[in-house]
């Protein structure tokens, strides 16, 4: 009886969980309190403060060959803060290092007013002190040139409350992972047959000192079916199917399992393909998802305009390399530079498919998302921007700021469409390629329809290297999977054991023909130019691109490691 009484009394005394409306009120009050009271002697003024509160339900399950391996489900609540001291022309941000005015803190699953106020208090205090010191570091090391575009585009505020998106249950996620993985065969033909399902639903609240007050929906479901098969020479081949969709847009469980079965069957078939014997230089056709990966690797980085931070010269090397006082402050993006053939265009509009996980109407910084015409007649005329100014983009942000909580957002691709001036059928694309191939003395050309995914390959026990389209010397293409020699009689001869060498961004300028439009989606690394280390972490991104014929690329043989081949025959059901 005593225990029961204590429970009842305790329930009455416990702080109540606050509503989203109360969350916004608390954040607004805390912004005012900190802006008024947070000041250090001789420190520059705190001129901008922004909170972001993520309030998600997360669920994740991993299954292999029909059995669950891992499963977890929990709320995810976190607070992000952006503290700017100085003024928009020169503040603590856009300078290398990690104490840059951005911070984050996990929040209790049951968020009370006291817990939220304490989190604001702790996080704002520490981030403010870091911002003041970062301002001094930057001031001491960097004198802005006369045409320095400043550090922040101030004066933008927005408010609105958008509908909440219902979430998935843990049981649903488990069922989906388990049932999809039953599609993988239990005949010993695969070394890996794993499905990961991860869902995240909830809301994102943005409150800032300029009056912004937003509550935005968030919904993401990632399903990755991944398979590995081993060829007789020891080569590992991997493939995957990925879905980034709303829950109600997913195929049925039966269809997903069937899709996994087809994936596995095709992958095992590819292990039987002969290997490339000699180096190949000549025309290459990119079809299906290979075309998406080509543009992802070679084009996307050239359209993202947020300048990298000014480097902080640490004793172990510069943090934030890439800034150039002489140029426009970016290594990847260049205005007025040809990136595609004449007559081609590219535009990014995060609103184009409203229920896609890559879609948003308001970006991370609270700016309305816009369609941006990036490339016209093959030349870059516009860049994707956040509220970090850039001298050659005077209009400032165009609503493409993306990034992870507690870091500096940057202008990033969300839903990009590349449009050629003219399309031909696949048949004509092939014909054109074969004509070009003759000039190189080939009776065939190379056709690639699918690349492997580095994060999927890394699921191997040996842990394959993860490059994510960036090598030491610039962009790279991952190992091809669906690769053919295409002959003039239409015969497609499968090959494997090949890798693209010395791929350069200028390859896109060498596109000589475009075919049908294809669609693909992927998870982009949170940091521009960064790498993904997990198959389920990143920012959903969608591309619509044409299948293309590139005039000249180089393909080299890759030898397999025979030691990787299992000694013991795989078990069977």
């Amino acid at each position: 009886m005593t225990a029961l009484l204590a429970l009842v009394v305790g329930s009455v005394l416990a702080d109540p969980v606050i509503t989203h409306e109360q969350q916004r009120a608390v954040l607004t009050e805390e912004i005012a309190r900190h802006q008024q009271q947070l000041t250090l002697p001789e420190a520059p003024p705190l001129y901008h403060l922004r909170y972001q509160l993520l309030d998600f339900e997360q669920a994740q399950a991993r299954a292999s060959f029909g059995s669950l391996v891992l499963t977890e489900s929990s709320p995810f609540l976190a607070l992000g803060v952006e503290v700017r001291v100085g003024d928009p022309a020169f503040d603590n941000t856009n300078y290398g290092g990690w104490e840059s005015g951005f911070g984050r803190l996990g929040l209790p699953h049951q968020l009370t007013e006291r817990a939220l106020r304490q989190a604001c208090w702790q996080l704002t205090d520490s981030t403010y002190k870091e911002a003041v010191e970062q301002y001094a570091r930057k001031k001491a090391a960097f004198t802005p040139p006369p045409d320095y575009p400043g550090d922040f585009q101030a004066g933008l505020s927005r408010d609105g409350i958008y509908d909440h998106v219902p979430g998935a249950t843990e049981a649903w996620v488990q069922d989906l992972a388990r049932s999809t993985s039953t599609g993988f065969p239990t005949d010993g033909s695969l070394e890996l047959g794993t499905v990961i399902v991860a869902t995240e639903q909830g809301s994102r609240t943005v409150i800032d000192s300029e009056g912004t007050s937003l509550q935005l929906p968030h919904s993401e479901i990632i399903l990755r079916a991944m398979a590995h098969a081993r060829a007789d020479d020891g080569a590992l081949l991997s493939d995957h199917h990925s879905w980034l969709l709303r829950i109600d847009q997913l195929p049925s469980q039966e269809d997903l399992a069937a899709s996994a079965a087809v994936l596995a069957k095709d992958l095992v078939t590819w292990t039987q393909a002969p290997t490339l014997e000699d180096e190949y230089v000549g025309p290459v056709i990119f079809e299906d998802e290979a075309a998406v990966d080509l543009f992802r690797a070679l084009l996307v980085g050239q359209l993202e305009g947020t300048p990298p931070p000014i480097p902080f010269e640490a004793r172990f090397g510069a943090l934030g390399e890439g800034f150039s006082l002489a140029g426009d402050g970016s290594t990847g993006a260049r205005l007025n530079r040809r990136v595609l053939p004449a007559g081609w265009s590219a535009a990014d509009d995060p609103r184009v498919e409203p229920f896609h996980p890559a879609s948003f109407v308001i970006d991370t910084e609270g700016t309305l998302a816009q369609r941006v015409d990036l490339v016209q007649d093959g030349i870059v005329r516009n860049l994707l921007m956040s509220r970090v100014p850039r001298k050659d983009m005077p209009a400032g942000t165009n609503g493409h700021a993306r990034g992870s909580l507690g870091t500096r957002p940057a202008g990033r691709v969300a839903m990009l469409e590349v449009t050629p001036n003219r399309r031909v059928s696949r048949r004509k694309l092939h014909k054109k390629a074969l004509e070009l191939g003759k000039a190189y003395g080939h009776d065939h050309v190379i056709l690639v329809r699918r690349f492997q995914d580095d994060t999927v390959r890394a699921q191997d026990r040996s842990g394959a290297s993860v490059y994510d389209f960036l090598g030491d010397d610039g962009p790279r293409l991952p190992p091809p999977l669906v690769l053919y020699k295409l002959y003039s009689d239409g015969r497609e001869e499968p090959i494997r054991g090949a890798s693209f060498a010395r791929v350069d961004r200028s390859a896109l300028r060498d596109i000589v023909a475009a075919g049908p439009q294809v669609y693909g989606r992927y998870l982009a690394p949170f940091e521009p130019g960064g790498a993904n280390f997990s198959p389920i972490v990143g920012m959903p991104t969608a591309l619509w691109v044409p299948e293309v014929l590139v005039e000249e690329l180089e393909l080299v043989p890759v030898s397999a490691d025979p030691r990787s081949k299992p000694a013991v025959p795989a078990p069977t059901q």
Partner: protein
Amino acid sequence: MLAHLVLLVIPTTLAQVSPIEAVLDQELARAMATFEQRGEPPYYTALSIEENQKTRIVATAGTLQSHNDQHVAFLDVDLRLGSPDLDSTHPLRGMSSLREEARRTVNLPIEHDPDYPLRHAVWKELDAHWRDAVERIVVVRANKNVKVEEELPAPDFELREPTVDRQEVSFETVDDAAWTEILIRVSDRLDAHPRVHRSRAALTIENERETFVDTEGTRLVHGGTWARVGVSASATADDGDELSISRSMSFRAVDGLPSEQELLDLAEQARDLLVAQLDAPRGQPYRGPVLLGGKAAAVFFHEVLGHRVEGHRMKFDSDGKTFLEYVGRPILPPFLDIYDDPTIRSLSGEDLNGFYAYDDEGVPAQRALVVDDGVLRGFLMSRSPLPDFPHTNGHGRRSTGKAPSSRMGNTIVEASETVSHDKLRAMLLDKVRDQGLEYGLYVEEIAGGFTMTGRIMPNSFNVRAVTTYKVWADGRPDELIRGVDLVGTPLVAFGNIVAAGDDPGVFNGTCGAGSGWVPVSAISPSLLVEQVEFQLKEKGADRPPMLPKPDAPPPGAQAAGGER
């Protein structure tokens, strides 16, 4: 021949074989047949599956921080090619030592019907271990050939008679909702002071079942429950010191968990001590007599002696081998005995973290005598023998993904001659006066410690003091200080122990070393040490928060519930 024979050993209680064990058995037999055919069979292989079910509830500042349930299973493979005298696991020297370790964390399916997913995972890992071992034994032999003889040549492995013991292991649970409420109230109590910056009350219930099979015929199913409840409060002092006070209790069954009132008392103690510490002065470097409370003395022995009597270390030419030549010779005063006994479940009314039935090499836990009447008698041994200690004493331990090595379990210090705490304190003051000092130090509580046993870095220890008092020779009240740690080197420190108390203290914790993190206990009476050195603890540089801590809203100030 032995390797071939041991494969024929058949477990005696087949009726109790679980589906998991059956898969391990069958996959082991199938793989061994292939390895035989390939002409390079391992002379010993063990497979074990650890099923782990864990619940963790954390509360902070009067609300629920997190509640996580986790159910996972891990596979471990110990595959040895060559012979017990020299096998593929032999430590390598020089560049060859940079080879990747074969042991790794392998997640297994947690559903076993059908068993193909489990079978597939076991096959893949076992096969990979064999291929690695085939390469490694070649390198081991070459490495042995080109390098000088090791300082202490010894076999790599001890073969054993099989053990068959399949225990019923039930997984325990608690009333999550009730415990969530309790922890919320405890965290509220911790948070109820403007100078406490962060507070946390946490409960962890961990159930574990291990299924072990090997080519010698050992078949084990064992495991148990581990419950831990604790509180912590932290704050930044005005001088930048990051202070944290933690209190926890460990149990081997959930029915031992404390009442809410006990936890509230614990929270108040931690909170009040933290606030007192914030105002306490920082100590100074010190050399002089010290009284170590029981828990502090227990950690002192864990760091100073325990890690140096882990037998496998004697095989490494890089190790300091402090006590190797001291076997049979006194290293401590004659009134002290030390043994490590993982078979003890509780002592002095406290459950012990270091309790286990079988070690991670399938060997029954045993009491290992280390020091008898001050004389060093032996080492903690895994199945990696030493020339004079060829047998394991059941101390081969590891955490997931690591290879086992000899580790502590329940390290127990006993004194045959003891005095009361008051007498010890009087003796401390005598020593202070004898040495012409103003004060001595009394270390009541410690947070843990670390030690370095290698040869490049100083062979020293650091015991992380939390609650330390100056005990004044002139009779002033004891004064709480902060910011100092107890440091020294083992041989000198042991030579300075002069008396032991009659008040054994139990330290339950988790110890990290080469084979990972393992739960341990250390038990010791309080000790008077004639001379110990203290050094300044590291200090933070951040100011405390500039604005006052937000007040808690009064109860009932808002409508409960809301849209969540």
